[in-house]
């Protein structure tokens, strides 16, 4: 075929600035019918912004959008939906208190004023079966596993008869098995003459799934490739503008004294069987990996360690002292650091400045130099200007790109995560618990976070790493356990293998965390 078909969606010289930051710089891009088009780039490269332009969430400062060869104005999400563009955002747009079938009904109305709950359930199940997406009904969506929520989001986009489905980092919280499921759904769907835009920074996934790959760097298109004609090395170089450094080497661990000990711990979960940990001992200088799909007790484990959730029974010792009854601030004062999975909800205060977020845990020892000059005599005072000044070296140490005085919401996802990391690590925690610390973070950012974790391991911290990313776990952990349906199982050293681990998690778990 010589004649290129009219693209379903075409961006022409689209530009967008946020204050001093150029998010998109004259981007031209075609999305054709029947293709899975991957948009590859680092965090902050402009991938999400570009797709938000297509979905009517952002207006371009310059440039045009063409749909079916016609220039179109997409000034609202509604206009985008009318034109057949469906977006599944990185942060889900679900009503957490409603069930899956009710959320589905909100978007894809059945066209009847009166309905029975059973009808909604049937419709969800029927439409789900058509697309191969099984979603548990009747339970509040907020209680479902991330994978289930994501399947629901995709079904919502498919149900509104989108012709162009945009998935923003859909695999950030999915296991390999769940990714395969998603891939087969998308491949099937593509055959119907529609298009998928798939945003990712995971090279392997993009190579496995995409028909065409467009690479963005700092808001501009830097290359377009066909998976057969390229490889991960070239894509990585396009993406980050340099050759990827060799993989991290984990040095032999030098276990120190026991820093965290848990025995016969039991904690109720919001859904499903309770979390039970018979025995867990972590020494300084160790990273203990906890593998499993979110929704199987991961959140509860994290909260039990931080003190946000009370355990009903058992023993929890930090540095040899009983801390079972201690609350969040008491444990933090004894050297516990925590990196939560959802940085927007639990890690940051988006409307506050980067500097303020760095000090959110409090300031050690009421530093006089952080008081305003005219209130230097008054304990407990705090100068926002001094906080910003004091934040500068931290920003430099952690390579955070952004202004210390700017709201943390203006930073890219990777830089936001580094703010959380910087806050927790600069307190030199004896015990650190991290939950999906590299979720939605680009290659270099993730590598930086891994380096920092290993660095603190070498300095004698005990680290609990709860993650869905098996590669991350295998690379960093000294010991490993799986957490499935609230049940804890430590793996013997000879089982440190991707396939064994995948099997331990897969199979009965593929439907999510409903155990």
């Amino acid at each position, binding site marked *: 075929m010589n004649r290129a078909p009219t693209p379903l969606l075409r961006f022409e010289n689209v530009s967008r600035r946020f204050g001093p*930051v150029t998010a998109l710089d004259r981007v031209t891009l075609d999305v054709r019918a029947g293709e899975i088009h991957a948009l590859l780039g*680092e965090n*902050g490269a402009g991938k999400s912004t570009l797709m938000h332009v297509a979905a009517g969430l952002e207006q371009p400062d310059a440039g045009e959008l063409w749909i079916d060869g016609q220039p179109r104005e997409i000034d609202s999400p509604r206009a985008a939906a009318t034109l057949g563009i469906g977006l599944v955002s990185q942060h889900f747009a679900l009503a957490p208190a409603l069930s899956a079938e009710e959320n589905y009904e909100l978007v894809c109305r059945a066209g009847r004023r009166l309905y029975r709950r059973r009808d909604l359930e049937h419709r969800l199940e029927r439409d789900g079966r058509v697309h191969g997406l099984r979603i548990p009904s009747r339970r509040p969506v907020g209680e479902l596993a991330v994978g289930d929520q994501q399947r629901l989001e995709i079904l919502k986009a498919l149900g509104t008869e989108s012709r162009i489905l945009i998935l923003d980092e859909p695999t950030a919280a999915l296991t390999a098995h769940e990714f395969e499921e998603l891939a087969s759904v998308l491949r099937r769907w593509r055959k119907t003459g529609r298009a998928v835009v798939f945003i990712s920074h995971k090279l392997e996934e993009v190579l496995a799934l995409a028909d065409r790959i467009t690479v963005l760097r700092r808001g501009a298109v830097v290359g377009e490739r066909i998976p057969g004609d390229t490889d991960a090395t070239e894509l990585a170089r396009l993406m980050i503008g340099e050759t990827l450094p060799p993989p991290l080497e984990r040095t032999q661990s030098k276990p120190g004294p026991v820093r965290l000990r848990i025995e016969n711990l039991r904690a109720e979960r919001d859904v499903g069987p309770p979390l039970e940990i018979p025995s867990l001992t972590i020494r300084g200088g160790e990273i203990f990996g906890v593998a499993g799909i979110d929704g199987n007790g991961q959140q509860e484990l994290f909260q039990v360690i931080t003190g*946000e959730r009370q355990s009903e029974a058992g023993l929890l010792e930090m540095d040899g002292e009983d801390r079972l009854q201690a609350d969040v601030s008491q444990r933090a004062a004894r050297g516990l650091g925590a990196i939560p999975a959802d940085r927007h909800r639990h890690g940051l205060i988006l409307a506050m400045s980067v500097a303020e977020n760095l000090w959110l845990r409090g300031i050690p020892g009421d530093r006089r130099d952080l008081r305003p000059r005219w209130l230097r005599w008054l304990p407990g005072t705090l100068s926002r200007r001094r906080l910003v000044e004091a934040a500068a070296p931290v920003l430099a140490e952690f390579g955070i790109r952004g202004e210390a005085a700017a709201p943390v*919401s203006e930073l890219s996802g990777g830089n936001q995560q580094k703010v959380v990391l910087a806050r927790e690590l600069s307190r030199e925690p004896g015990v650190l618990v991290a939950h999906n610390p590299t979720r939605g973070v680009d290659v270099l950012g993730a590598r930086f976070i891994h380096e920092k974790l290993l660095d603190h391991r070498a300095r004698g911290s005990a680290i609990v790493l709860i993650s869905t990313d098996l590669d991350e776990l295998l690379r960093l952990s000294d010991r490993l356990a799986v957490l499935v349906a609230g049940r804890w199982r430590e793996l013997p050293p000879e089982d440190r293998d991707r396939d064994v681990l995948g099997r331990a998690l897969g199979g009965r778990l593929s439907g999510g965390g409903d155990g």
Partner: protein
Amino acid sequence: MVETALRLTLPQHRARRLALAVLIPVGLMALFLELSGYSSLTTARALFEGAFGSGYAFEGTLLRACPLLLCGLAVTLCFRAGLWNIGAEGQLLAGALAAAAVGTRLTSWPVGLLLPTALLAASCAGALVGGIAGGLRAFRGVPEVVSTLMLNFVLLQAIGWSVQGPLQEESGAYPQGDLVAVPLPRFGDGRLHGGLVMALVITLALEVLLFATRIGFRWRAFGLNPEATRAAGVRPRRLIVGLLLGAGAVAGLGGGIEILGVTLRLLDGFSPGYGYSAIAVALLGGLRPSGVLVAAFLFGALEAGAGRMQRFAGVPAAMTYLAEAMILLSVLWVTRPPSRRSGGVG
């Protein structure tokens, strides 16, 4: 809503927005008055003269601004932390009740001791009422919107009962309390009392507390993201109870000052709803103590001018409440909603 109100404080276009926020309600009010057969110019003049036309009028403005300011500060503290305290009225009434009780029943005490005691009692009573709402929220999960509003009614009835019962004047002629033994000192022979100075000092102190201390930092953080603040180790119960105690104390002091400085005796209905207007004052002031000071002055002027407006232009004094409502609504209207996306670039 915290962020809605905070948008007022964004520096960009602030002047233009605030000008709009004043011009729109003024225009609407003028239109409304003309349509109802009043002269808007006459009305405006009467209103202005009633608020600023003479030394006496200006005193009236300041005196009305004082309880509005203190209640507005109480509301501001709570709103900043995401606690919807609409009970400044009840806290104010509780303060008034306590000040009147101390000021008329402990008359054997020396004046130098009695006055501070009366003011302290007013603060404590306000704090108690706020603290009840705080405790209910912190330990039983009762929404403070409901509890503070309900407590307003309780305190309203408590005053009504007191002026006919335990605190009624000796002569028993009217449903009102006796004159207090220790009025607040006044400046010269005017009506301005020492409570105004206290209110200004408290405004300054709260501005510092909110924006230049670690406690204020935690409060604001809690208002913007309670979950993350809790995860960072702030104890929410302590914070909620502490804040409502503090806010109640400030509003209660306002009630005490009103009794000891203006009415000099407990009266049923001495407050024309200061605690409710204070919600508008707090929002109009951008939830900053310094802004609340300006907003309280503006509303004080409106309410002070209302009497003259009624007498000389024949416009019902209640029209000022309409004006206040329209000012607030237009301010909230001209402040644009934030961008739909709160996440970062990319």
